[in-house]
C-alpha cells in the first residue's frame, strides 16, 4: 500500500495531471504554489499591484480551463508563466497607453523581492535589487525577460518557452536591458 505523503512533496507536473484527471479541488495546491510568484511577476509587468491581482486571478481561471492543453514535455512552471504572459499580452494590447507607472508607489518593487517567499538562488542580491528598482522604467520588451531571469530566476530555456522567442533574442534583450539600466542609473553597488 502506498504511504501517505505530504502534498508538497509532489512535483507540479504530477499535481497538474492529478487535477485534470481526478480531483479539481487539488487545484488549490497549484494556486498555493504560484500565487505569490505570479503576482510578483505581473506587478513588475503592469506596475500596479491591484491590476496584477486581477490579472493573476484571470490567469488561474484560464489555467484551470486549459489544463488539458498542458503537456508534460514542458515544465509546468514555464507553462504557468506562459499563461500569465498571455494574460498580460491581452491586457497590454487593450491598455497600451496606460502601462506607465500608474498605481505604483515608491518602494513597491523592492517590497516584492523582500518578501520571505522570494528565493534568490542564482543571482547577486545587489544586482537583483538594482534590477527590481529600475526595471520598471524599461520598455516591456526588455523588462519582461529581465524580470523573468533575475527576479523569477528562470533559465534562458525556460524564458524561451514562456515568451516563445528564440534564446538568442532573449539573451540580447537581457543584455540590452541591463546595459540601459547601467547607463541611466549606474551599476549595482
Amino acid at each position, binding site marked *: 500500500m*502506498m*504511504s*501517505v*505523503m*505530504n*502534498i*508538497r512533496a*509532489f512535483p507540479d507536473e*504530477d*499535481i497538474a*495531471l*492529478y487535477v*485534470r*484527471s*481526478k480531483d*479539481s*479541488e*487539488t*487545484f*488549490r*495546491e497549484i*494556486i*498555493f504554489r504560484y*500565487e505569490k510568484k505570479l*503576482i510578483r511577476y505581473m506587478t513588475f509587468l503592469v506596475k500596479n499591484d491591484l491590476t496584477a*491581482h486581477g490579472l*493573476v*486571478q484571470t490567469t*488561474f*481561471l484560464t489555467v*484551470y*480551463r*486549459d*489544463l*488539458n*492543453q498542458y503537456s*508534460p514535455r514542458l515544465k509546468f512552471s514555464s507553462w504557468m508563466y506562459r499563461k500569465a504572459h498571455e494574460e498580460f499580452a491581452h491586457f497590454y494590447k487593450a491598455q497600451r497607453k496606460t502601462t506607465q507607472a500608474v498605481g505604483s508607489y515608491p518602494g513597491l518593487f523592492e517590497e516584492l523581492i523582500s518578501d520571505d517567499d522570494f528565493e534568490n538562488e542564482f543571482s547577486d542580491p545587489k544586482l537583483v535589487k538594482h534590477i527590481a528598482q529600475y526595471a520598471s522604467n524599461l520598455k516591456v520588451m526588455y523588462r519582461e525577460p529581465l524580470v523573468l531571469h533575475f527576479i523569477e530566476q528562470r533559465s534562458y530555456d525556460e524564458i*524561451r518557452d514562456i515568451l*516563445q*522567442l*528564440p*534564446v*538568442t*533574442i532573449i539573451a540580447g534583450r537581457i543584455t540590452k536591458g541591463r546595459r540601459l539600466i547601467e547607463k541611466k542609473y549606474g551599476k549595482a553597488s
Partner: protein
Amino acid sequence: MVKHHKDLNFEKKELAYESGMSRRVMQRIEVENIRMRPSIVFIARTVFLSLIVAVTAGIGVFFTSVIFYKLLAVRVFGVRFLLLHIPWFSVGLAISCFLLCFAVIEYYKLAYKLTLFRLFMLLAVVFVGFAFLLYKTPLHENLRRTALSSIYSVDGQPLVLYAGRVVESRTANIFYIETLRGERVKIYLIRGARIPSKGIHEGQSVFVAGYTENGKVVARSVMALKDMSPAK
C-alpha cells in the same frame, strides 16, 4: 499522448490552505461553472494549424516546381529568354504560399525555438529542395500531356505529343526518340502518317503527334525541327 496521473496519496486536509485568491478562484470556478476544455479542442487546433501549413507548403512547392519545369525543362538559357518566359503566375503563387506558410508558423509560434532568419532559410530550403525533386519526376510532363489530350484528339483518341531527337531508326515505320527529359520512346508510324519530306534519320530533331494504343505510341504526324541543342 495524454499522460495519466499518478495516484497521489496525500491528506486532504493539507489542501486547507485558503488565501483570498484561492477562495475567489475556486468560488468563480464553482459559481460560473467553469469546466476544463476537453483535450480534443487543443488537439484539433494543432492538427488544423499543421494542416494549413502542410497544404500551403504543398501548393507552394508545386508552383515552385512549375517554375523549374518551365525554365529548365526546355534547356534554353539566357537573360532575354528568362525575362520572356518567366511563369509569373507560378512565381506569384509560390511566393504567396511561402509568405502565408511563414506567417502562420510565426504567428502561432509553431517554431519559436528558431530565429526568424533560420525559419526563413529552412522554409526556403524546403520549398526549393522539394520543388526540385518534384521537377525531376514526370509529374509536370504527365500533367501537360493530360491537359493537351483533353483539348486535342486524333480519331477520337487523346492526342500525345513528344519532342526529341531520333536516336535509332531501323525500320521504315519504327524509330526511337530521346525526349528533352532524357526519356527513350518507341514510335510506330501509322500508314499514311505525315513525315518530313527528307525522311526520318538518326540525329534529327522531331516533333511527334499521335496517340497511344495498347501502350504503344502511334504517330500520325512527324515534323522535323531545327537543332534543339542548348543555346551557346
